[in-house]
């Protein structure tokens, strides 16, 4: 069947799927925009309580991992399988590190009672409660995508080891890399909106 080998088609399909992922987050960004307009000072106060250092660290991690996955792809295309696998491992490692840091951040917020239903949060003004609710939903959903992306990369790694993903047939790696870039891209929006601008 010729249809199976259409690499361009496979990439097109992935792009289309990524559009729909973007719009999934689009709904959350829409809520952010509306509530920011309604509660500017409360959002600023909420943003101040996020840990910019950890946020920046995570941003650097994700950008680096986007680079390593791109390098993994070009390594594969040059036939350097060993290097490709190492770069993939590095990417997956970065994703796990990202999740750990995210976990530490959440942990701290939980410790201060700053979570939906938490005692401390209930005492804050309405706008700040909204801020933290949005923060948890958005970073939670993003974290889930990090996890999915990492699983995808792990699977690709397996296929690369078996030689099923190769210079001749790189589609799977191309597509998981695309997905990973999306995960990165969404974070690039989340980071300034929640940690920096406010």
């Amino acid at each position: 069947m010729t249809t199976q080998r259409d690499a361009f088609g496979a990439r097109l399909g992935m792009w289309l799927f990524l559009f729909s992922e973007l719009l999934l987050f689009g709904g959350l960004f829409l809520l952010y925009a509306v509530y920011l307009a309604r509660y500017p000072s409360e959002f600023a106060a909420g943003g101040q309580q996020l840990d910019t250092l950890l946020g920046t660290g995570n941003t650097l991690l994700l950008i680096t991992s986007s680079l390593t996955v791109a390098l993994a792809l070009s390594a594969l295309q040059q036939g350097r399988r060993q290097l490709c696998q190492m770069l993939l491992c590095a990417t997956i490692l970065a994703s796990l590190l990202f999740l750990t840091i995210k976990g530490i951040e959440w942990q701290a917020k939980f410790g201060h009672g700053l979570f939906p239903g938490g005692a401390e949060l209930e005492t804050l003004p309405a706008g700040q409660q909204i801020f933290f609710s949005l923060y948890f939903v958005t970073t939670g959903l993003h974290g889930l995508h990090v996890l999915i992306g990492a699983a995808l990369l792990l699977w690709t790694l397996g296929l690369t080891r078996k030689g099923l993903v190769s210079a001749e047939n790189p589609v799977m790696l191309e597509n998981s890399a695309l997905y990973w870039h999306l995960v990165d891209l969404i974070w690039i929006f989340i980071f300034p909106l929640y940690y920096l601008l406010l």
Partner: protein
Amino acid sequence: MSQQNDRGFLQASNLQPLLFDWIFSVDHKRIGLLYLYSVCAFFLAGMVLGLLIRLELIAPGPTIATAQTYNALFTLHGVVMIFLFIIPGIPAAFGNIMLPLQIGAQDVAFPRLNLLSWWLYILGAFMALTSLFSGGGPPDTGWTFYVPFASETPTNVSLALLAVFIIGFSSILTGVNFVTTIHRLRAPGMHWGRLPLFIWSLYATAWVQILATPVLGITVILVMVERLIGLGLFDPARGGDPILYQHLFWIYSHPAVYIMVLPAMGVISEIIPVFSRKPTFGYKAIAASSVAIAAAGSLVWGHHMFVSGMSDTAIMVFSLLTFLVAIPSAVKVFNWVATLYRGSISLEPPMLFALAFVFLFSIGGLTGLVLGSASADVHVHDTHFVVGHFHYIMFGGTGFAFFAALHYWLPKVFGRMYNIKIATIAWAIIFVGFNLLYFPMMLVGLHGMPRRYYDYLPQFQNLNVIATVGSWVLAIGLLLMFANLYRGIRRGTAAGNNPWQAATLEWVVTSPPPGENFSQPPQVTHDPYDLQQAGKP
């Protein structure tokens, strides 16, 4: 051997249990039929619920149901009809079967993803049904799941929402598959200007599926999380705003109206030229209007919220935009009528359903403008006028187009013809029953009867009795139609490869189509409605 080939793709492999042949098949035709069977089953289930709703409304006061049961009834009816019947109806069932055949491809771009879509759809349906019998009882929010009620009612809303999410995911995957297929797998000579109009409509629909459905996804996730841990994002007591839920919901659900109706328009655009023996009038205008509807339709969601609380400016803008979307829809209607003009019309069953579509859809569209003008909407919002209006669009429009597609394409899919005379009688009964059912509903709505109540004031009774009797007539017609189609599939006379002398590619292959659509990629040499060339690729 020749015996086997007659059955085409329907031939059992005999390598595994017959059921596995189907539910694990990656053949687009089989997946399409899986969808078709499921969709028809859910339609019948939804119909029974609709009949029960109507029965309750035959007299004021409790008749067969309590208020709570009634709430559950219309919620289920809405959820089943919208998410399980009408959204997957034409695109996933007939789209799957016909898309590759009509563009001269062997299959869709991602056959395995296609099977996954069906499995997700069934999983979602299963969860929706489970939500009836578990947890706090059947959901009672209406199919719109408005907060704050949806985040507070003790009924099993969370599971129903999860079901909607999963079905939405399935719909996105189908969209991705179709766009890729149309871009990549057209046969040589099948350039964009030669795409059948059904394919154009699937293309526009697929984009809406990809871009609008995720917004519904995030919306239902938010309500689920709200019920689980209480985010307060839509809770005024905690700074949230329930109106924002409505915005998010309709940002999906208005475009979803086009997911429902565009493929239907595509079916009609296939049928009308064939039974008028004339090429379509305004091919380009019809194709472009599909895309225009999909694009402009994403900007009008606010017309569902004229009385929910919006600034006057926003109301005016949304009202104006709503009027603008009517234009491409009207373009289609005028082009169909122009195609009929001086055609040599033959009133076979597919054509009868198509003509009924044009008539009923026009009524639905014009009453839509009544609702689109904000000042009139203030009076009829949330009355039975709205219920009548959207049944004219969804049922009179898409439902009838679905029936038209059944009568048009089943002879191709199964190679057998149903009884034409019975089909015609069934059509007449359905048409009469339909109008008897929904026209009085619009009238009683104009008199002020609100929707979603099991009870009403005594002065509304006459019209309600007529509507309920209409629902019985309609149901008889539908049962007759389905029985006739079923008999046709099982025991009908051989239909031949091209019973309607149509010129699109699916009629070139045998009926039923072979397992492998085309032994070699066809070289397309003519336009889809060049009826002189019927039967040639």
